[in-house]
């Protein structure tokens, strides 16, 4: 059902930034750090979205997703590998029964500047090729022009095209600019059927930030209280260090809590984050600061 | 054999770096007896143009920094200058001052920086107003920096004069392109070294050396310069500045004084001269 956009809560930007600083002042040490880092690994959507992607590149990334660091036992696999529709079949084959999902971008990613029919066809291709999850982009131009109904309808249409695949809706918060816009876009996406709301394509700056993530987590909480449905969240782009990843987890922990602290309801869209986490885990184990020479880059 | 000194190369200070003049030209600075002290760069209008681009880029960020931060940066400049007292005294002496005069000039310069550091979070409190308008509005006027200021520094008091016009400009949130004293330019580049170690963001202060006659028209006519400060008393130069400044209604400030040692040569009005006034209205009715 199309949501009531007139009564959405508004956000004071300075107040949100101060709250973020509070989260960032948490000191995560020892066993809670190791716990958090391992959790973050299990939430990774390892991503390759480049014009020059090939079968070989994708297969190697998939191997990494299933074998993050063999020399350290007890590590989880990544949650998913995220690729373009043309690469889905290779990822599907490479990952087969590992439990790592195949996520595909679709809908004229990243700009979304195309007709609805093409976006539906794009989605169908990804699903037919075997994607478990689809990451779509909303039409930001339409949103900023005030055509909120259009956004609702396109998301609903893509959700239908997804069939059994889970739908993540990318808001591209860097283009929406204000926190109130992010809140509004989140509301539309959730009511239109999104399984996850996601911050960014990672193709423009700024990508994910703690303030927009906070607003989206608040939206998810309100949505649950209103409808009883849990929606997941994925910040993507710009999360390159363990320190930052832990700040996101602290925020998730204190805003939504236990039910969301797993890969079914939270993902990190990242690539280089994996190795930074592995280096931190290694340091925790050995006591030595690490070099990236000792961790595979695939 | 006595040890040979490694002589300093005097370059320009633009964007937090020390490039040579793109024109490749130089000017020899000699002491009273005609001996060469150093070759300095003879800046060209392209150097000035480049400096303006960099100063413009730096202005928004510098303005946004809190006044507390600006004050602490100025205090740091004072710390760094004090620490290099001997270096500057020696340089001033080589440029022709007596040792006593050089020490006094250095000490006054440090104290003047501390003076303006102290104004950073206070001048707004004495110059802003809340205006009792005849309607239900909250109406207030605050100062805002003019933006990019070109400065022709004093000829005499080559260190103290420079500090006296530079500090109030930047503490007020402006960024600066400054042309040093033509006859005594050495301290200005050494001062740039001090700026470089004082947490001053790159591009906030840019220092050129060279001929006033060549650079002055560029400063006065550049359409992206918001204000020009001229220290001197040559009528012809002042007239030229005013004529060229009319192209973009540049704000023009003249300081005719020949030296800067008097206590009245520092005051918050030096800051205020490079500020605009912005007035805001908001209803107060429910």
């Amino acid at each position, binding site marked *: 059902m199309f949501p009531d956009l007139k009564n959405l*809560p*508004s*956000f*004071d930007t*300075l*107040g*949100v930034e*101060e*709250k973020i600083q509070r989260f960032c*002042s*948490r*000191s*995560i*040490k*020892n*066993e*809670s*750090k190791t*716990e958090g880092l391992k*959790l973050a690994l299990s939430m990774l959507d390892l991503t390759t979205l480049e014009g020059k992607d090939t079968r070989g590149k994708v297969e190697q990334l998939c191997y990494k997703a299933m074998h993050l660091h063999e020399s350290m036992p007890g590590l989880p696999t990544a949650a998913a590998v995220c690729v373009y529709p043309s690469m889905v079949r290779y990822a599907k084959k490479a990952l087969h029964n590992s439990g790592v999902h195949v996520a595909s971008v679709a809908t004229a990613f990243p700009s979304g500047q195309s007709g609805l029919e093409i976006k539906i066809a794009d989605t169908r291709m990804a699903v037919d090729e075997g994607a478990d999850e689809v990451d779509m982009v909303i039409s930001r131009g339409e949103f900023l022009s005030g055509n909120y109904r259009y956004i609702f309808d396109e998301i609903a249409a893509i959700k239908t095209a997804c069939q059994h695949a889970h739908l993540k809706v990318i808001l591209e918060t860097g283009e929406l600019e204000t926190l109130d816009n992010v809140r509004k876009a989140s509301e539309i996406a959730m009511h239109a059927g999104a399984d996850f709301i996601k911050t960014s394509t990672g193709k423009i700056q700024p990508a994910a930030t703690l303030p927009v993530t906070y607003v989206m987590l*608040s939206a998810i*909480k309100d949505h*649950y*209280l*209103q*409808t*009883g449905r*849990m929606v997941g969240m994925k910040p993507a782009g710009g999360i390159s260090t363990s320190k930052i990843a832990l700040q996101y*987890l*602290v925020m998730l*922990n*204190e805003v*939504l*809590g*236990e*039910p969301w*602290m797993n890969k079914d309801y939270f993902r990190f869209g990242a690539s280089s984050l994996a190795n930074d986490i592995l280096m931190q885990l290694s340091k925790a184990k050995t006591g030595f600061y690490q070099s990236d020479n000792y961790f595979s880059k695939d | 054999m006595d040890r040979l000194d490694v002589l300093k190369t005097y370059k320009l200070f633009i964007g937090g770096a020390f490039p040579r003049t793109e024109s490749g030209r130089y000017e020899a600075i000699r002491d009273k007896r005609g001996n060469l002290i150093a070759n300095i760069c003879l800046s060209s209008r392209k150097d000035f143009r480049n400096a303006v681009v960099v100063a413009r880029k730096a202005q928004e960020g510098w303005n946004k920094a809190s*006044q*507390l931060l600006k*004050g*602490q940066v100025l*205090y740091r400049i004072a710390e760094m200058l004090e620490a290099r007292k001997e270096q500057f005294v020696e340089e001033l002496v080589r440029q022709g001052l007596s040792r006593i005069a050089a020490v006094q000039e250095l000490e006054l310069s440090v*104290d003047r920086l*501390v*003076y303006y*550091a*102290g*104004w*950073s*979070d*206070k001048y707004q*409190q*004495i110059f802003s107003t809340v205006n009792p308008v005849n309607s239900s509005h*909250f109406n207030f006027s605050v100062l805002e920096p003019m933006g990019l200021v070109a400065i022709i520094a004093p000829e005499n008091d080559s260190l103290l004069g420079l500090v006296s016009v530079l500090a109030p400009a930047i503490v007020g949130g402006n960024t600066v392109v400054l042309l040093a004293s033509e006859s005594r330019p050495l301290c200005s580049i050494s001062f740039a070294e001090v700026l470089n170690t004082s947490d001053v963001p790159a591009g906030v202060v840019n220092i050129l050396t060279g001929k006033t006659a060549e650079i002055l028209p560029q400063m006065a006519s550049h359409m992206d310069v918001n204000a020009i400060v001229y220290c001197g008393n040559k009528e012809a130069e002042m007239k030229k500045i005013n004529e060229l400044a009319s192209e973009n209604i540049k704000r023009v400030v003249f300081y005719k004084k020949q030296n800067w040692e008097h206590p009245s040569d520092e005051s*918050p009005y030096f800051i205020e001269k490079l500020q605009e006034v912005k007035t805001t209205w*908001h*209803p*107060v*009715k*429910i």
Partner: protein
Amino acid sequence: MKDTTENVKFKAAWKYAPAPEATDHVQISSSYDLFINGQFVPPKNKVYFETTDPSNGKILAKVAMADKDDVDLAVSAAKIAFKSWSKIKPQERGKYIFRIARLIQERAREFAVIESMNGGKPIRESRDIDVPLAANHFFYYAGWSDKLAYAFPNRNPAPLGVVGQIIPWNFPLLMAAWKIAPALATGNTVVLKPAETTPLTALKLAELIQESGLPKGVVNIITGDGSTGAELVQHPDVAKIAFTGSTAVGKFIKKATAGTNKKLSLELGGKGANIIFEDAAIDQAVEGIVNAIFFNQGHVCCAGSRLFVQESVADQVIQKLKDRMSTLIVGNPLDKNTDIGAINSKKQLDTINRYIALGKKEGASIYQSECHLPEKGNWCPPTLFMEVSQSHKIVQEEIFGPVLTIQTFRTIAEVIEKANNTPYGLSAGVWTQNGAKIFHMTQKLNAGVVWANTFNKFDAASPFGGYKESGFGREGGLHGLKPYLKFD
């Protein structure tokens, strides 16, 4: 709409491991004397008392008990020092104060740790708020030293002489900075008496001042109890008294200085109204409530201790507040994750508990978040009292703890009347996204500090002080110079 809160609990599952602040670099002597005339001298009667850590009762050091003779010695030193201090070049005066600011910045971490150990406040607050604000206060006032003519044009400002300053235990170092910095900048000399339970950071400040080269006698720091303060108030050579503390003691001091020529400034208690309108940014308003009453365990004179929430959003706000309270961590002040530290003393804890018992007796409904309290030490969980009115004593009297009373309101006129309906007048908070409403409220609220869409924000450049029984005189900003000057 489903009854949903049953199904999913927004509970923070991930427990944070202890993250203790390192204390091995911190130097606390076993015993401290009185800082008089640039030296540490023993008290005349050789009496010392212990100062402890309220989170575990450990004794941290012995400090001196200054008696009448010691007070006299300190005031005499200040009087002699005033002769030269008031005459040195104002710019040079400023440079001493800049030095003190810089030294505090260099030793920031040590000060923060000792502040938390001696007072009970979380290290996160002493490190991120108290110590930086203290350093900045010296930095700000240093700059005024040679600029007074601009602050008071046409009035010929001159210093008063020896100022006696008595400070409380809730922000020990910050209150010392708020007192000493403007007094010095305006050319006065100082005898400062820190609070009985929190002398250590003032004594470390004395050590720092000794090393800064400040001429001897310009700042004197004497520890003691209420009797020491009384001696200082009554000393004939003290030209001015500046006091921050309870309204009761403030009234006593005002009476005691009546008939003398002593100037006086008082910063006393409060019962701040924190007002949330339905058009507020609710999420940030809830955070604002937390900052208003749980910051520093509620040991804040300007705390937003009376919440007024517009009835149409009351349920929402209270539920969100309870959710937020569940993530507040009460515990070891030196743990970096602690949000709420220890209550400063057994005496204060008893006072707070008396009010909590009173609230229950008065029929208010109480809510306290589930939190694990340590066994040793003085602790109080964050507490809400709902279903209260202006007539409840817990709504009228200052509790000075993490206890919030919550009242609803319906119209602007109603909440203004209720907010102002108190003998206090220190602070107020307004939460609304409507600009005109903000300015209307700030005009109508009888408080010295009004925070709109924020709370408990302090800055050296911002004047702070109360109306009515919250005291008079301002600290901070240009206005903060006035209490330390006389004019033609």
